[in-house]
Every structure is written in C-alpha cells, then in structure tokens.
C-alpha cells in the first residue's frame, strides 16, 4: 500500500567533486510502502546519490528529505528514521555481531530490553545466532553483509536504503532479504535499493529509476517503462538502450 507522503525526496540534487559532476539535478520521490530500485551503469552516480540520502555526503546543491526531515538541516531526526546498508560491509572487526547490534541499539537510543529482544530476533532471522559471539573478523563476506543488514534493521527504520544488498549472499539469504524488504514495504516503510541484478529490480521493485552519467534518465513502474519502450519488454533491454550498452550486447551476440 503506497503512502501519499514521500519518505524519501530529493530535489534538484547535485554533487560535484571538483570539476567532475557525480550527480546532476536528480529529483525523485519514494513513498511509504514502496520498493524503489535504483539502476545505473558503473560510475553513474548511484552510490553518491545514496550517500547523500543517508547523510554521508553533503550535496553541492539541492535538498534531500528523509521522512519529511531535511537531511542537512535536521540530520538527527532524518537519520533516526533511516537504516542504511553500504555496498562494502565495513564493520568493527573486533566486535562480535551481538556486540555490534547492541552498540547500534545504543546509537539509536533504544531501550536496553528492546535492544536485547531485537538483536536476538535478528540474529535468529539471519542465521547468525551460533556465530553471534564470534568476532566479525572471522566472518565471511556474506555473514558480514547479513550483519550489516541486521544492524540497519535494528531500530525498525521507516526508510531503508540499501546499496547492492544481495552482493555476496547465498541464494537462501538473498531470498530472505527480498522477503524482508517486501514485508517492510508492506508495513509502510520506504525501501530504496540500488542493484545491478536487473531480475531483482524487475520482480521486486514497485518503481525503478535509471541513472546515467549522474542524471536520472528514467523513472517509473515496469509497465510504464515498457509502454515507453515501444518494443522492449525486458528491463535489461530498456536499461541497455537507455544507458548505451546496446552495442556491447550486439558484440556479445556476435561472439557467441
């Protein structure tokens, strides 16, 4: 059920690194109850956009609102409403998953009994109960990724932003993530995820945004994208046509 109030709203977002424009005039809205897929080729500006949404980067111009709060002007309530899973699960290697989740609970000023209950639930959910007291140092990439996702879910966020969440996950865990994201959206949260796996975007996302060279070049539901595509039925074709990968697909065809 899509809510009318946007929980993520970027308006004319621009981010420059010196002369290089990483994000150019990106305006989009993600509503509660919606899973928004953010696609784009490598270096298109996906991660930069995501980092400005979660407050890791200050935009050069434009505004970002999360749960109605301006991320720059009112960072604390905006961040309190948001959960973030980065593309690289860099976590404190010398903490265990249990200690990390407890620490995250403290950062979000959660009540201690709630923290304990929630971390037990999440460790069980992500099949980390047994490894919960081991140091993260000894975790595989997939386990770290699951721990990062559990950390983002600790405070039951209204807005969840995920940068390539299924990278390094086994099929069972990837499926679990998809189900969790769907459940979160059904409960009214806004989910914003970037992915290179177009199949995930096609089947999971309510709406899709495609960014190329820093600019948002298409936003809409799958059917809306197809309607405008005039012939292209799969998201892969639409994506390649829009982002200039069609020639390489043709070359790959010749090589077969």
């Amino acid at each position, binding site marked *: 059920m899509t809510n009318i109030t946007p929980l993520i709203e970027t308006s004319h977002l621009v981010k420059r690194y010196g002369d290089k424009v990483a994000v150019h005039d990106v305006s989009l809205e993600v509503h509660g109850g919606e899973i928004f897929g953010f696609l784009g080729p490598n270096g298109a500006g996906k991660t930069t956009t995501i980092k400005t949404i979660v407050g890791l980067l200050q935009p050069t111009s434009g505004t970002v609102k999360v749960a109605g709060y301006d991320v720059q002007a009112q960072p604390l309530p905006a961040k309190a409403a948001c959960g973030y899973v980065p593309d690289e699960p860099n976590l404190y290697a010398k903490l265990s998953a249990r200690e990390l989740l407890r620490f995250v609970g403290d950062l979000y000023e959660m009540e201690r009994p709630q923290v304990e209950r929630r971390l037990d639930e999440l460790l069980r959910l992500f099949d980390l109960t047994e490894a919960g007291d081991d140091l993260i140092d000894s975790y595989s990439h997939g386990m770290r990724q699951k721990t990062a996702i559990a950390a983002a879910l600790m405070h039951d966020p209204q807005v969840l932003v995920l940068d390539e969440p299924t990278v390094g996950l086994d099929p069972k865990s990837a499926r679990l993530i998809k189900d969790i994201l769907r459940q979160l959206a059904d409960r009214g949260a806004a989910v914003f995820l970037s992915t290179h796996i177009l199949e995930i975007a096609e089947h999971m996302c309510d709406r899709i945004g495609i960014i190329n060279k820093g600019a948002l070049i*298409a936003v809409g539901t799958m059917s809306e994208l197809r309607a405008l595509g005039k012939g292209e039925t799969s998201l892969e074709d639409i994506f390649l046509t829009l982002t200039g990968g069609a*020639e390489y697909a043709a070359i790959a065809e010749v090589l077969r």
Partner: protein
Amino acid sequence: MSLAHPSREHGPVKVSISSLRAQRSNLPHGATVRLLRRYAPRNDLKSDFDRAMPRKYGLGHYVGKLLRLRGLIIFSDFRHAKLRRKIGYLLATLFVLAILVGVFVASWALLSFLRSPQLAEFMDLTPFLASVPVIIVTVAFFAVLGTSFALLLQALYLAGDMDFLLSAPVPIRAVFLAKLLEAILPNFALVSLFSLPVLYGLGAAGRYNLLYYPLVVLVLVALALAAAGLASLLVMSIVRLVPARRVAEVLGLIVGVFSLLCSQSNLLFNSAQGSSEISSAQASQALSVLTRLNTPWSPLAWAGRGLLDMGEGRWLTGAGFLALTLGGVGVIFALALRTAERLYYTGWARVQVGTRRKKVARPSRPVAERSAPLVALIERIVPAAVRGLIGKDLLVMRRDLRSMSQLVSPLILGVIYAVMLVRGGGQAPAGRGEAPLWFMQAMQNVLVYGNVAISLFVGWMLLSRLAMMGFSQEGKNYWLLKTAPLSADKLLIAKFLVAYLPTLVLGCGFLLAISLLQRASLGALLFGLAVVALCFAGAAGVNLAFGVVGVNLEWNDPQHMTRGTTGCLGMLASAGYMLIALALFFVPPVGLALLGRSETIGQLTGLVLGGIVSLFCAIVPPLLVRDRVPRIGEV
C-alpha cells in the same frame, strides 16, 4: 512516469526509447565494426590454440615481470606525487647519501686511529680489528632477519594483490621470489646504509686491495638473501599454526614494546647500575664479547673472515671462507624456495578461509543486573549513544593488539620512572656543594611535585594517542556513526571521555602508588590528584581538536592514523599547553614556600589559575572544531 534526456538541464523531457535507439544507431558505425573485428573469433583454430597456451619461460622471466610491475607502481606513484612530495624524496635521497659519506669518513678516521702505532702502545686492539668485519656482517644478518619477518608477513600473506597474482598464469615460486625480493630490498638498503660504509672505511683504513670492495657488496647481498630466506621459512611455519593477521597483531605489540625498551635502555641501564658512566673494565668486557663472535664455528664469521683475508691478500683462505659462505647461502635459499611452494600456498589459503573461533554464546545479562544505583545514575546522566561509543572504543582497543602496543608504552614508561623515583628516594641530588642553599631548597620543593609531573608525563603519552586518534581509529567503519542520529556534541563528548577516563585512572593510580611509597602528605596528594585531573582534561581537549582536524579514515596500519603535520602540531600544542598549565599550577605553591608563606594558599592559587586554563583548553578547542565533525569522511 517520465523519461528525462540527460543532456537537458531544465526538468525531465519525455522521449521514447526507440528514438533514443535511433540516436544511438547514428553513432559512428566504424567504431563498432572495429570492435567486432578485434573480438570476433578467428577461423584459424590452431593459431587460437597456440595463443591460449602460454609459452614456457624460466623462473627469472616471471620474477623479472613481477619486479618490473612493482617498479612501475613505484615510478607511477612518484610521477603522480605532488611537487612537495617529489622535493621531499629528493631531499631524503641527498640526506641518505650524506649519511653514507659521513659514516664512511667517520669509520675511516676511527679505524685508522685504532690501527695507529701510538694507540697500540697502550692497548692491543688487533683481535678486535680483525673481528670488525665479522661483527658488522653478523649485525647486518640479524638486522635483516629481524626486520624481514614483519615485511615478509605483510608481503606474502596480507598484501591485497595475492588473489590477482596467484590466479595469474605465473609460477607460485616466482610470486614467492618476487615478494621476497620486494620485502628485503628496503631492509637491505637500510642495513647497508650503515654496514657498507663501515666495511669500506675498514678497507680504506687498512689499505685493502680493490677486490675487497665488490666482495663486500656480494657478501652483504648473499647474507641478506639467506636472512630473508630463513625469515620466510619462519613466517610460513608460524602462519600454518596461527592466522597471519593475528601474527601481525602480536608482532606489532612485541615491536612496540621492544622499541620502547630500546629507547629507554639508557635509563634502564642507569637505573640498574646506579651510574651512567661506563668503566674501562666494562668497556673491555663489551669488546671481548664482540670479539667472541669471531669464532671459526660460526658461518657468519666465515663471511667476515673471508672478506678480511681477501682484503689483506690471503687469497686461499679468503676464497675458501667466501666459498663456504656462498654455498651455505645457496643451500638456505634453495631450501626456502623448495619449501615455499608447499607451505606458502597452504598458509595463504588459510588466510583466505579465515579461522572461526567457536565460542559458547554468552547469555545476555538480565536487565535487573544492571540497575545498580551507580549504573542507574550514569545511565541517567550519560546518553546511551555516548555510553555505547565509550564501551565500544574501549572494547575494540583492548582486543586489537596493534592498538595495544601503542597503549602499553606509557605503562612501561611509568614503571621505569616509578622505579627510578623510588630508588632515588625523592631527594634532590647533592651535587658538588657549589649551589646556594636557596637553590637546593627550591629544588627540594620542586621535587615534591615531581611525582605529579611524572604522572602527567606518563598519562599525557597515553592521552595523546587516545584523543588524537579518537576519530581516525574508526577508519572505514565511520559510516556507522555518520549515518546514526548522533550529534557532533555527543560524538565529541564520547571521544573526549574515551581518552580522558583511562588516562585519569592511569595518572591518578600512578600518583597514588608513588605518593604512598614515598609517604607524601595528604595535602600534597590531594593537590596532585586535582592537578592531574585538570591537566588531563585540558590536554584531552587540545589533542581531540587536532585529531578532528587531521582525521584520516583511510588507514591499514594504526601507525598511519594521523596525518604527519597535524599529528606533530597536536603534540607540540598539547606539550605547550602542559608546560603552561604546570607552571600555573606549581609556581604559586613553590614560590610561596620559598618566601616562607603558606604553601596551601599557593596550592589553592595554583589550582584556580591552572584550573581556568585547563578547563578553557578542555572546552574551547573541541568547540572550535565542532562544525568539522559532520563533514568528517567527505572528500
């Protein structure tokens, strides 16, 4: 739904995908055709097969390739460096050359003097002079062996390029050899910086023949290879038992403690001897110990003796010793190479797999257990986020041995100074009796507060490390704090307390122990504790502010946490603050005591003056950098 053309600046413009495709079809066709020609499969299957099977080359070919790659990286790094850094490299090179020349000239002069007939009339230094090459070669060998261990551990197991290299069609032996050479080159250069000019100085002083000089280089290179080979075997053996990362952590701790003990060896020696002067008997004893290295049973002595004999024209024995040396080196190196293939791969594989330590999950502590009155009070005063951050930082520091090595240094220093103080009995040295009485009284008064000053010094070192690197130590995990609803104030308070509280405990504990041992008065103890608490607060504020300004989140080695200039400036600023604060705390009581007035009034005046400055420094510098905190981690 909208489709926005990227070239348009003012709002999305609806275009159809087919029109975009049409635009793409207008792109130069030639480019695609060229790509197709380049990548399309060829019909000549034989030539394809030949291309797929790499030609067989010797080991040297692959090692050369890998070393060229390393050279390319170093050259590229230099080429893309800022002009300031390039000038720095140039100056460093000139400095190294100056050291080489300086050591050579000094050795030449010293060894010529030791060989002079005038000196020979007083003492016979012939056995020592004959042992000089053996001593130098032995020291160089063990220096390369010791320093290579850490570098080889890093190069062979912890370097980020191993996935790439081991999956490439390059023999593992070549990878091992290239890594070995890359690792020992810097150490060899460093060791040669001192050993080469000394051995050349020996040659010049003894007027050795010309063949001696290239042989010195050959012997040093050979021994460095042998030392590195042995170090690599040691590394590979240990890594089979203990994970490489853990070995690196333990090594960091050992090296840190050892370096500190070396730096304080003079103090330790004085403390043990009770005097800083070395008697002639001790000197001759030390010389005889060094001379004992020149035993015919030591393979390292063969190298030194070979060089000496060749230099002095005893060709047969010289060639024999050198042949033995080079043969031994060959055996060690061949053994290292043969063992490498088996041990190296399995050890490296263990690094990739990781070792999960199975522990019994600790049950969560019941909530009721935590509601002791003191804990409840702390929970009410200190926000959960600040408490969580402090707990996390202390836990991570305790578990990371690399950080621990930096933290134990102040504790070792504390023990050394405590022993010295206790042995000294807190009395001013008697001197030679020429100092006036008032000066001796002033000295005695100053020494009363010496305990406080030393407590402050010991704590200050710990504080500098904790406060200056409070933010940097978050490293790549900083995103967790930055995306959390945590204000800059809370973050600064947490980092301040992480630095301040352990230092306060250490400083006060140290002062308490020393005061009890020296039976200091209660008034002096209370004054000292207040000074320690206030001084540390100010130093924490200054160091924390510099830590924010010079924050570096992109580090792999904890020693690279702060940027050089800011780290130095921070240390200077906090040292300057400490001197001013100490003067304000101590001048009034010492001054009033000298004038025969109440020392207590002096102490109270000192506390007010020093306290104001300390609290100012504790609060104002962090406030000045508060606006920088939300921007930490941004380019």
